[in-house]
C-alpha cells in the first residue's frame, strides 16, 4: 500500500521569552521550585529598577523588590497564564510601591519631624549632577498617578498598552497622564528654564 507522502516544511518553533516564563512557571507549579530562582534572575533587574523609579529613588528599593518576589512566590500557583508574566510581575511591583508610598505619606502626617530620609544616590550620565538633581526633585513632586506612567515610558520604555496593564487603566488615560506629567514637570522646572534650556 502506498501512502501519499506530503513533505511538510517544519520550522523550528520560535521560543519566545513569554514561553520561557510560562514553562518555568508550569514547572514551578508542578513542584520544581528551582525554576523560581531562574524567574528571579530573569526579572530582578527590571523589578528593582521599576521600584527605584516608581519610588523616585529610595534606599528601600531592595526591601520592596524582595517583597515583590516573595508575593510572587506565594501566588505563583494562582497565575492564570492569561497575560504575560512580566505584566503581572510589574503590576505587583507598582502596587507594592504605591502601598509603600501611601504608608510613608501617612507616617509623615503623624510625625512632625520628617523621617531621616536619606537623599538617594543618583547617577547622571549626560546632564550635570546639579541639573539631574533638579529634574529628579521635580519628578518627585509629581503625583504618583502621573509620575509612574512617565517613568515607565521614559525610563523603562514601556508602550502605552503595557503601562495601561501595569497600572490598570485605559490607554487614553495613560496618554493623558503622560502628557500632564510632562506639562507638570515643565511647570515645576520653569524657574530653571534657562539652565535647563527649556
Amino acid at each position, binding site marked *: 500500500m502506498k501512502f501519499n507522502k506530503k513533505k511538510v516544511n517544519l520550522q523550528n518553533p520560535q521560543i519566545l521569552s513569554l514561553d520561557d516564563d510560562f514553562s518555568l512557571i508550569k514547572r514551578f507549579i508542578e513542584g520544581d521550585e528551582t525554576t523560581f530562582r531562574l524567574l528571579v534572575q530573569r526579572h530582578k533587574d527590571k523589578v*528593582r*529598577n521599576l521600584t*527605584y523609579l516608581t519610588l523616585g529613588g529610595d534606599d528601600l528599593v531592595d526591601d520592596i*523588590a524582595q517583597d515583590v518576589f*516573595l508575593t510572587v512566590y506565594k501566588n505563583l500557583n494562582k497565575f492564570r497564564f492569561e497575560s504575560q508574566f512580566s505584566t503581572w510581575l510589574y503590576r505587583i511591583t507598582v502596587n507594592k510601591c504605591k502601598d509603600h508610598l501611601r504608608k510613608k505619606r501617612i507616617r509623615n502626617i503623624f510625625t512632625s519631624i520628617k523621617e531621616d530620609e536619606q537623599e538617594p544616590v543618583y547617577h547622571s550620565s*549626560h546632564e550635570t549632577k546639579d541639573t539631574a538633581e533638579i529634574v529628579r526633585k521635580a519628578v518627585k513632586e509629581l503625583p504618583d498617578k502621573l509620575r509612574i506612567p*512617565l517613568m515607565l*515610558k*521614559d525610563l523603562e520604555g514601556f508602550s502605552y498598552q503595557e503601562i495601561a496593564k501595569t497600572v490598570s487603566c485605559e490607554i487614553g488615560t495613560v496618554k493623558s497622564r503622560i502628557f500632564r506629567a*510632562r506639562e507638570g514637570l515643565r511647570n515645576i522646572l520653569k524657574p530653571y528654564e534657562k539652565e535647563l534650556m527649556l
Partner: protein
Amino acid sequence: MNKFYKEYEMLSAYIDGELTKEEVKYIEDKLAVSKDLQQKLTELRRVKELSQSSFQKVIESPYFETKLIASLNSESSSEYKIKKWIPVLGISLTTIVLMLFLRSNPKFFDTIIEEQKTKLAGLYTENLKPLFITAGLTNEDIFDFALYRKLPLDKERGQYLMIGSNEDGSNYFEIKTASIVKKGNDFEKFIAALDLNEKQKLQIDSILESYANDMQGQILVNENNTVAISPKLWNYNKAIFADVMAFAKDANGVQFVKIAPAGFRDINRPQLVEIAEVVKAASDSDYIFMTPDTIFIETFRFDKEKFDDEMRRMQVEMKKNLKEAENQLRQQNFILNIDKNIVKLRTKGGKENKLEVFIDTNICRVQIPDMHFDWSEISLPNFDDLETQIAAATKNLQSFTIKIPKEGHSRQKFEFRVDVRDSAQKFNFDIDIPNFKTPILPDTFMNDSTFSELYNLKADSISNLFRQLMDDSMIFYQKDFQIEMREFQKEMKKLREELLRLQKDLKKEPTKVKEVESLEI
C-alpha cells in the same frame, strides 16, 4: 480645556511613537503650519530628554538573590512551618491521642454515660419509700385491687393507680384523679355472700394483710416526686385474685359456686396457691420510674428489711411521742405532680420493651407492651404445598392437639401438631411462657351476671382482668377445640372442593392457565 490641549496631548504621544498613521499625518500637517505646536513639540522633547537623562538604572545588588532565597527558606523552614501548623498539629495530635486511648479503652464513653446515668438515676431513686405505708392500704383496698385493678395513691385527692391490659395483650398502668366512684364496700359484701364465720374472716384478713405487706415494695415514692412502680404489680393482681378465689372455694364451696363466675367453679386450688408462690418469689429487680421530667426503667433493690426496721422504730417512738410521730408521718405524705408538658420516654432494651406514655388532664398512662409473648418467630407452613396439605389434612384429620410444655421461666417451644394418617404436620411457636398457669375457661365468664351484679363490677374492668388471665394461661380444652375443628374441617372441605373444581376447569380450558397461575392464595 485649552483648545490646543488635545493636539498637545497628541504631540506628547507623537514623541513617544504612540500615534496611529492617521494621527501622525494629522499632527504633522498641523505642525507644518502651527508655530505654537512646533514650540510645544520642542518643549515636550526637552522634558522627555531631561527625565530620561536624569535617572540612571539602579545600582546592581549582588546579594539580592541570596537574600531573597534566604528569606524564602526562612519562611518555609521547619520552624516557620511548625509555627504555622501549630494549631492544626495540636488538634490532630489530640485526635490521634484520643483515638489511641479510645481504641485501648473502647468502653470509656459507655462507662462515663453509664456512670452519669447511674448518678442521674440516683437522684431519683434516693430516699424511696413505700407509698402504701403512708397511703394506709386497707384489706378492702387490696381486695379492690384484686378485682378492680386499682390502688389508691392519694385518697384525699381521689388519685388512683390503675393497671390494665389492652386487646393486643399489652399492659398499662394509669394514674387517674377522682374518676372512680365507689359503690359500697365490696369486701364486706363478699364476706357476707360467702357467709364467713369469725375464724374465716380472720383468715381472709390475714391473707390480704400479708399481701398488703408485700405490696409495700411495689410502689415507692420520694420527696423528689418520683414514683417507682414494679411491673410485678400485674402478677400481684393475679396472685391476690387467685388466692382470694381459692380461699372462697375452701371456705364455702356451695356459696362460692353460686357467686363465682363459670371459670372459677372448677377451680384447682393447688394451682392458685402456686401462682401466689411464684409471684412472691420473683425478685424485685426492675422498677418503672416516673419522675416529674422523665420516665425510665432502672434496676433498683428496695431493702424491705431495713425499711421494716425503721417502721418498727417509728412505731416504738410513736408510742413514746404520738404527736411527733404523727408529724413525721405527715411529712411523708405524698403528692404526685406530673408536668404534662415534659415527659420524655426512655426505653430499655429492644422494641418489645418500649414504653408508651399518654398524658391528659387527669390521666397519666404508661403503656407496657406484651411482656410475655413474642410471636415474631412463628414459622409458617410452606404455601407452595398448601393445596396438597389441605387435601391431606381434610381427608385424614383425626386429632388436633396443642402440647404445652412444663412450666418455667425461660423461652420454650410450643408445638402445634396436626396428625394425619401417614405423617404429622408440625408448626412451632417460640414463646416466653408465663410464670404460672391459670385454669380458667374461656368465653364463659362474661355471661355470668351473678358475680358482676353482686360486686357492681363494670363489664370492661372485669373483662380486662379475665382476658389478661386467659391470655397468659394458654390453656385450651379439648372439647372447645373439637367444636372449632369441626368448623375448620367444614371450611377446609369447601376450599378443597373449590380447588378441585378449579383443577377440572384447568384441564378443560388449557388456555386459561395463565390466568389461574396468577391467582394467589
